[in-house]
């Protein structure tokens, strides 16, 4: 074997260092959160906890899981993720199937109709008023209906389906199969990777969304979501002004210790972190083929 040049070795070293740094920066915050979540609350305030808890305890998880809203939020989050993903998957698949049929008469018009929605939208206020008039606000369905079709998901699936050989459809048609049969029996089985990819997109979106819970279901604790509950715990914003002197003589919020917040964070990220490595095979394939036309 040829002796490696100095530049080559230097490159390898630098690259290895870069990769190590990358991995550390990516993983450290997550591991640190786990460590804090396993540390005693009062002790954690002193700081200086890195990868291992200093005063180990499971108590924080107990505290989190005893919070009624977090439990409700978990149920709702799971429900919206499963239901929302199933419905969106079927709808997007069907729509993509339609717009990828070469013989379909309104093919380009239908595509354009949806592509436009990617860039033009009514904005927060008109959308809110629409949902209100449709009776979607203050219900669970506000998490499901608005997101059934996503133009981006449609594009990804369409590209994938267009890549399948036309001969499949033609031979099935010769056998007398209708469009529905072709969709269910022939195209869908071939689309598993892209279905998995889109399902993952939608599921991640559903699981991670919080703004809808805040805006549309603010008064409905029974429809709260895990992310919104987490946001409440972590909440740290505030713009706005005003100098009230509202005196409460007794009620002051009990502070949520850092360690409890960390535990809530871990509870919220755990399901998806456990899941994604197993789906990796699918989404990498799906994204690669569907994402960009070669």
């Amino acid at each position, binding site marked *: 074997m040829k002796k490696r040049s100095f530049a080559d070795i230097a490159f390898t070293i630098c690259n290895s260092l870069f990769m190590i740094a990358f991995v550390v920066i990516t993983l450290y915050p997550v591991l640190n959160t786990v460590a804090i979540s396993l540390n005693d609350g009062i002790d954690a305030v002193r700081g200086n906890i890195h990868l291992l808890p200093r005063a180990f305890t499971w108590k924080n998880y107990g505290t989190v899981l005893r*919070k009624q809203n977090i439990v409700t939020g978990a149920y709702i989050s799971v429900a919206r993720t499963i239901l929302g993903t199933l419905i969106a998957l079927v709808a997007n698949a069907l729509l993509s199937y339609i717009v990828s049929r070469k013989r379909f008469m309104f093919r380009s018009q239908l595509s354009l109709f949806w592509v436009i929605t990617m860039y033009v939208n009514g904005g927060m206020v008109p959308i809110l008023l629409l949902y*209100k008039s449709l009776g979607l*606000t203050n219900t669970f369905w506000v998490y499901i209906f608005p997101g059934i079709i996503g133009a981006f998901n449609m594009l990804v699936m369409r590209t994938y389906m267009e890549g399948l050989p036309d001969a499949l459809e033609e031979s099935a048609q010769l056998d007398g199969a209708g469009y529905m049969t072709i969709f269910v029996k022939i195209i869908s089985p071939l689309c598993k990777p892209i279905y998995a990819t889109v399902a993952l997109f939608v599921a991640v979106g559903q699981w991670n969304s919080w703004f809808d819970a805040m805006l549309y279901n603010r008064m409905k604790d029974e429809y709260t979501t895990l992310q919104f509950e987490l946001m409440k715990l972590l909440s740290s914003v505030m713009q706005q*002004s*005003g100098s009230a*002197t509202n005196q409460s003589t007794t009620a002051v919020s009990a502070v949520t210790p850092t360690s409890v917040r960390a535990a809530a964070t871990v509870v919220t990220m755990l399901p998806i972190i456990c899941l994604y490595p197993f789906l990796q095979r699918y989404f990498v394939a799906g994204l690669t083929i569907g994402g960009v036309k070669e």
Partner: protein
Amino acid sequence: MKFRKYFVTLMAAAMATGMLTGAVSAEEYSDDQIKDYTMFIAMPGSEKNDGNEVKEIIAHKIGGRVKEIWLTGQTDAEAVGTIIASGEYPEFINGGDAMAALYDADVLVAWDDYIDNYPNLKEMYTDKEWDMFRQEDGHIYWANVFGNTYGMSKATTHNDEAFWIQAKVLEWAGYPQIETLDEYFDVLEKYYEANPTLEDGTKVIPYTMLCEDWRYFCIENAPEFLAGYPNDGSVIVDKENMQIVDYNTIPIAETYFRKLNEEYSKGIIDIEFGTQTYDEYIAKLSTGAVLGMCDQWWDFAYTVNDVFKQQGLDIAGCNYVPLGLVAEKGQENRWHTYGDTLNNSSGVAITTSCDDVEAAFQFLNDLLDQEIHDLRFWGVEGVDYLVDENGLYYRTPEMRMQVADNEYKASHMCDYSYMPQWGGTSKDGINAMTPTEQTSEFFEGLAEPLVKCFEAYGAGNYPDMIHSVVEENAPWFPMYSFSNAMTTETEGGVAWTKMGEVKHEWLPKVVMSDDFDTTWAEYMEAYNATNPEAFLAEMQEELERRAAAAAE
């Protein structure tokens, strides 16, 4: 037989008086008779667990149960805007500074037709005071729930703003007289130099300030007090000339911020002060590492003192003692407000989503019933407090420890803290309406370092530490109830909003600046560009209106 007849008559009489005074009937409500309400409170607070014990007891006694939803992660205006936009409102709402938006959106029920039927509620204010709650259309839509004293005041705390300092710092310094900012920071600096860390190694933070949202009064309004004026909040009222004065631009304001700037560059002020959230601030105070800050008692003490008790930090002298600082030695101060403060700009309201308005009013009314009031603030007799042979309520040290516990508060205590309530003396004439005001409880519950500190200064309670001028509130007091209710519909309201924005941005900048004079000049320029004159003119007009109304 005779005895029995006597007893029956007595019972009948008792029941009759019970009816007349609107007292809670002995009849219990069954589970399906209990009405469930929701209430939104535009303040952060801690949620009660489902099945909270006192909440259930109250529910069975008066037939109503309220689920409180607190403000989280949003500003009050944003949360209220969201509620208005969603079109479905909670039955009860306490909208903080955003009450005006609710009124504008027509979602509140007017009280005028109901109030006379509910004596406990009616009793909260005099007719003249109720009139102050009238909105432009002449109706009353809400009532403030705080600052009402029944009978004699029992106040032992300083439920107002002050520069606070840990008792142990005063002890360490030999209980010096501290009157000015310079003296105050001098003590903090010396103590910090000698004790840079706590025993467990936590770094001491000599001084911190909260600048978040409306709570930025902690940094913002000290000049009005340093100048010796009472808490009118947004402005100073110069009584002699009946003039509104802007405390942001008086020389004392500049001196105050110059001092803060100096201390910041010395490393005495917490570097996170400008960005910390309320939660972080409270968490910091709760560690006992913060030596001092400027704040209102109600903004920190209820949470922080309970944590101190739980952690044994009270015995270590971490409790805060108020100091009535002034700009010049010997000057009088008005940090403590002796009378009741009526803030007509916010309170509890009933919304149009409530399908049984009368029941809702009845519920509010019943909450003020002494028996229920005791349940709310004292808890369950025999569990949370005991009664001695003179009828005086008291708590054992274990009980005090128990009611300071957050878990216990969530599962057992239910004070409905943003519902109508009284301070002062109980209707039994013996006790205080709330345990915090019970004199005997106050001294029993006081940690030793505080007792020593009070003794050293010859103070009997917190207000005595301050030495404020004892006087009645002026008829226009507090002016902030007007500025809080301003909307961007008027020029002054727009100016007020912008002034707030400029101050939020610049005050921390001024404190952190490397070059105070330049930054101060830039701040003043930005401040004056917001047209504060328009705001001041509207305040002046309101002052004159209030003064004239009082003279009538």
